[in-house]
């Protein structure tokens, strides 16, 4: 209670701060305190007042506990122990004893407490030996403290912070030392530095920013007369950027109508690949004012920049040549006449593609074999079909015997080779032929141990000839120029692939072993040489020694046919990819010339026996006629001139011309087509 009062009074005093008011307030205090405390003398109270007033004057703390001076002054001693037997509890500020209050017995105090409703807020102060009744405010304070809040409700713990001092713009001298002299005189070093800068600016070493701006237009005559003449050449290898393409009519704002693509064409551009699509589509504006800004202008300029610094540059020779000048200078065709040029005769009669033809050495008769199972003989000059043999199988190859007194035809069927008497010539020859083509005892030929299983010579009853039965399919046949020997090729025959036969003795043998898969084999026209073409190579054998002399590398994918120049030193090889190789045996084992002639397989190449001509026939329905002069001078290379392209055959099942042969004496060419026609081309 008392403390509260003090507080109140102290607050008053703070406001008024006059001693008179202090007196008056202290009087009130006395009255109020006398109510509570019975045994308190006036002196004590007055002294209390003084002390409290003193306190208040010195300190201005707001903690109420500190400012109230306790009545007892004994200090912090164990009161209960020391003053247990004494009558006083201690001494007041003036040294007088403070007497103990008379002890109430428990009953009395209980009754008192039970009567008094305020009993619960009374507490006993042992130190001062009195009972204190807490006011409502004090209770509140206690409750707030218990609940952990600030004791006084009116106190705002989070008040805005107000600085106690104004420190900004206030000197805060750390030192009281007097200002030094150097603060009052100009700096020597600064002066030096400035002088240095001034000197530099004057010398032009430092440029003041304003000067820079003035010098924007410093252009001068860069190219003087002496720079033009000086050896001031560009470094080597400088390539100037190519100039951009100049615009054509189509880029005009108003191009001629023909330069503007139609709507369908523009639509078709959409279907193109992005790269192929035209970059610029011409448009027509009817007047200049309607031309809009070009939206790709900046982009194109940028692209040009990129090209200039990113694109590698090289000097490239722009070839501006007349295509005609590329063509080789060939001798005139007129000088190389005669050669076959136009179709003169057609031999019709075969019912299927004519696989093979052959011309009689006398030049009167033409033999042909076809897929329709017949072999025929024609009279060349009239086109009359003289003879027909029904061989019953596909005639793969047909070949006249080159000897004029042996008019024998060799026809290759699937497994058989038929040697037929053509029936030409006078009676003497006919009788000879009948003898020759007669096999008396069937087993006579079987004395050759190796070939007995490979070939069997049998008399053919129906056509009055010889039937040679091979063990596997035969692909080609070729006579020796004397007409007694001939060779057949059995591609799948392994070591017995090449067979040599002697007609007079009806004897066969297989002198060559270990080849690849042979395609065809031919005799040398005059010497004892033998050529075997495998898939990619041509092997040259010496027949007398039976050994390999040369191996020609054609470089083509697959050989289809081969022909020997009548001189014997040059051969041509036709391949299935349409290439033709000319070999000069004395020059090299590689082709002297490779001609890409046909677009499809070459079926046959052939030399003329007397004229300097050769020809090739192909499945692309054409036959080419070439001129070829072979010089006797070894230093001179053969001259090959393409002369004529012969057309006329029609394609049938993807095949065109199947065979071609020259006439033995005239510059005429026979071609056999898949359209079952044989044609004769004359000069």
């Amino acid at each position, binding site marked *: 209670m008392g403390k509260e009062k003090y507080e109140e009074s102290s607050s008053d005093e703070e406001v008024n701060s006059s001693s008179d008011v202090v007196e008056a307030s202290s009087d009130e205090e006395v009255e109020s305190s006398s109510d509570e405390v019975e045994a308190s003398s006036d002196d004590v109270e007055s002294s209390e007042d003084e002390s409290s007033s003193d306190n208040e004057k010195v300190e201005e703390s707001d903690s109420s506990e500190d400012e109230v001076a306790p009545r007892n002054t004994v200090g912090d001693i164990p009161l209960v122990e020391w003053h247990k037997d004494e009558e006083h509890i201690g001494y007041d500020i003036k040294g007088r004893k403070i007497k103990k209050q008379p002890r109430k017995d428990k009953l009395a105090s209980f009754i008192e407490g039970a009567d008094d409703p305020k009993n619960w807020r009374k507490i006993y102060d042992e130190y001062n030996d009195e009972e204190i009744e807490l006011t409502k405010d004090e209770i509140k304070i206690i409750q707030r403290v218990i609940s952990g809040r600030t004791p006084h409700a009116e106190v705002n713990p989070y008040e805005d912070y107000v600085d106690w001092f104004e420190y900004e713009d206030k000197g805060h001298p750390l030192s009281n030392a007097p200002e030094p002299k150097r603060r009052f005189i100009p700096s020597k070093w600064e002066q030096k530095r400035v002088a240095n800068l001034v000197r530099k600016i004057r010398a032009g070493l430092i440029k003041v920013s304003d000067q820079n701006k003035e010098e924007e237009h410093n252009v001068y005559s860069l190219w003087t007369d002496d720079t033009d003449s000086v050896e001031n050449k560009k470094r080597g290898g400088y390539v100037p950027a190519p100039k951009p393409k100049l615009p*054509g009519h189509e880029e005009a704002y*108003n191009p001629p109508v023909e330069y503007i693509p139609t709507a369908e064409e523009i639509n078709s551009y959409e279907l193109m690949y992005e790269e192929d699509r035209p970059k610029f589509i*011409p448009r027509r504006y009817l007047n200049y004012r309607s031309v809009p*800004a070009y939206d790709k202008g*900046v982009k194109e300029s940028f692209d040009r*920049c990129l090209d200039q610094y990113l694109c590698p540059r090289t000097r490239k020779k722009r070839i501006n040549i007349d295509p005609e000048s590329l063509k080789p200078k060939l001798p005139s065709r007129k000088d190389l006449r005669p050669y076959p040029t136009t179709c003169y005769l057609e031999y019709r009669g075969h019912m299927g593609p004519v696989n093979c033809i052959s011309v009689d050495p006398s030049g009167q008769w033409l033999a042909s074999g076809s897929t329709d199972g017949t072999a025929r003989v024609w009279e060349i000059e009239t086109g009359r079909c003289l003879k027909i043999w029904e061989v019953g199988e596909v005639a793969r190859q047909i070949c006249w015997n080159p000897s004029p007194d042996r008019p024998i035809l060799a026809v290759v069927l699937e497994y058989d080779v038929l040697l037929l008497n053509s029936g030409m010539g006078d009676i003497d020859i006919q009788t000879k032929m009948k003898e020759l083509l007669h096999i008396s005892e069937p087993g006579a030929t079987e004395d050759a141990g190796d070939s007995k299983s490979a070939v069997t010579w049998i008399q053919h009853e129906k056509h009055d000839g010889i039937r040679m039965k091979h063990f596997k399919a035969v692909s080609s046949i070729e006579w020796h120029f004397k007409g007694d020997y001939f060779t057949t090729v059995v591609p799948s025959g392994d070591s017995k692939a090449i067979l040599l036969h002697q007609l007079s003795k009806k004897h066969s043998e297989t002198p060559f072993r270990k080849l690849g898969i042979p395609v065809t084999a031919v005799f040398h026209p005059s010497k004892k040489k033998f050529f075997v073409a495998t898939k990619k190579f041509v092997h040259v054998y010496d027949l007398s020694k039976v050994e390999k002399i040369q191996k020609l590398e054609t470089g083509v994918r697959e050989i289809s046919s081969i022909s020997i120049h009548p001189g014997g030193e040059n051969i041509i090889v036709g391949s299935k990819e349409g290439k033709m190789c000319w070999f000069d045996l004395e020059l090299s084992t590689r082709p002297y010339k490779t001609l890409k002639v046909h677009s499809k397989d070459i079926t046959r190449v052939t030399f003329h026996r007397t004229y300097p001509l050769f020809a090739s026939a192909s499945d692309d329905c054409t036959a080419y006629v070439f001129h070829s002069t072979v010089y006797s001078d070894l230093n001179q290379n053969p001259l*090959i001139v393409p002369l*004529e*392209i012969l057309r006329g055959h029609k394609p049938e099942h993807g095949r065109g011309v199947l065979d071609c042969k020259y006439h033995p004496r005239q510059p005429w060419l026979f071609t056999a087509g898949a359209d079952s026609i044989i044609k004769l081309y004359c000069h």
Partner: protein
Amino acid sequence: MPPKHYRAPGKKKEGNAAKYITRTKATKYLQVSLNTFRKLCILKGIFPRVPKKKFEGNHKTYYSLKDITFLAHEPLLEKLRHKRAHEKKVKKAKARKNKELAERLLNRMPTYKLDRLILERYPTFVDALRDLDDCLTMVHLFASLPAVEGERIQVKRIHNCRRLSHEWQAFISRTHSLRKTFISVKGIYYQAEVQGQKITWLTPHALQQVLTDDVDFNIMLTFLEFYETLLGFVNFKLYNSINVKYPPILDPRLEALAAELYALFRYVATGSTRKPAENQSISSTEEKKDSDEKMDTCVNESDLQLAQLQHQLPSNEPGALMQLLEDSNNDDDDVDQDTIECKTLFKNLKFFLSREVPREALLFIIPAFGGVVSWEGEGTPFEETDEDIAYQIVDRPTQGHKFLSRHYVQPQWVFDCVNARIILPADAYMVGMVPPPHLSPFVDDEAEGYMPEYAETIKQLQATAKKNVMPLPDLDNQDLADPQNLIADGVMDRTQANEAAEERRKLQLLEKQYHDELKMEMSGITYSATLSNKKSENSGSEEMQHKDEVVVPVSTEKNDEDDRAKLYMSRKKRGLYEAIEISNQRKKDKVALLKERKRKASASKSG
């Protein structure tokens, strides 16, 4: 055995590896970033090469090692390094909020000059002129970009580009060296001939340009930096060659009216005619003072200003004017026939540009061909009401008030006249009409194999103009238009007559052919047989029209001949031959397509 590409230690590289270096290695070698390297390459004009063998792979860029060592010795490299260091300082200062220091450093940014580089790249002036195409195109493009602060390009540079382009145009116009012009969709192409070099450049249309995002302006600006400097020096040299001070000082009043080009013209003209016209200037100024007090400040003489004078002076003193004109003519010695031709094309003709017409282009072209031009606005040489105006260039559907004394033509007329080098009849270019097709002067029609119809008419006009020598306009410049008009009319009549004759001849030929064919059919000759006959016939006859008809059906004989020759060619030659054939065929196809379209178009028009 050592590996295939083994090189003994200490042995130098050989072959391509010694001659070329990849880009990555080059940047490492120079110790620069890729951006700096790019900048250096652009400024020094160094470009990638194609080594014979790409020893480090196909996808890499190779530079010549010599070029790179050349770069390594470049002082600019050091300058760029300084600049980078300086930029770092500025950045640091800014980061420390030391505004003052940053500003000071920014003001003292190290600069470099490109003049030495230009001399190095173009040792002679002709070299520079030869490479000026890209430079001019770029500068003109940037001159047309919006000069807006905050865009990616500094306003200062755009203004500089504008200045440079105007200076260039003024020079070309003054020396009458413009040769060809062409309005394309992309802009206007000009071709000038300076010191024997043909210089072609493109200016965008005078419309707002589109700045796209897929463009790296850093690269373009680096190029521009070089081009600006180059064009500055070139202009200096050119201006010096005609005795005009460079950089020009312009009349600020005209500059303010956005007629810089005109101001430049006046300046250039003044400069070059100063000496010979000195004595004249005194007398004429006196006259002017007499006649008019409020004549504006420019007192100097020029043939352009003569128009003004003429407007204000009464026409009783044509003598003085003519003398002036002669003076300005005599002062430069023209050796070139072409220049004289260009100079006199629009001579003594007055043009007036309407508001809607692209002023800058025409203001450049017409004086370049000797014409006098004015436009609507302040500070113009003469007004629209001037009686002497021969042609008014308009580009609007209808014309309100018409002066009978002048032609109203569309802008294309000027361009076509310039390309044809004759004054074309203005009838087809009248207001509101669809003008005849605009043809590119850069195409050689004969080489291309197709001549558009209008090109033929122009050719005929040219031929007729050459035959009857252009009657020079009389001294009395009262009716200038009339003689021109007469010529044009005459020319027009002749062309029409020619065309009619041509038509008749063609018809006759067709008829004859038809009859012949009928006869042949009657007699039973096959088509292929006729072909050979026809060939011989045609070779005898002189008619050119039949030529393509004969060529189109390919005779097998000819083919055979080709095949025969082709057989004997080596593979390489055959490939080349075939490639040439293909390209020729492509050309033919193109021409055939054009003809087909033309035929269809004319058919639809008539039908």
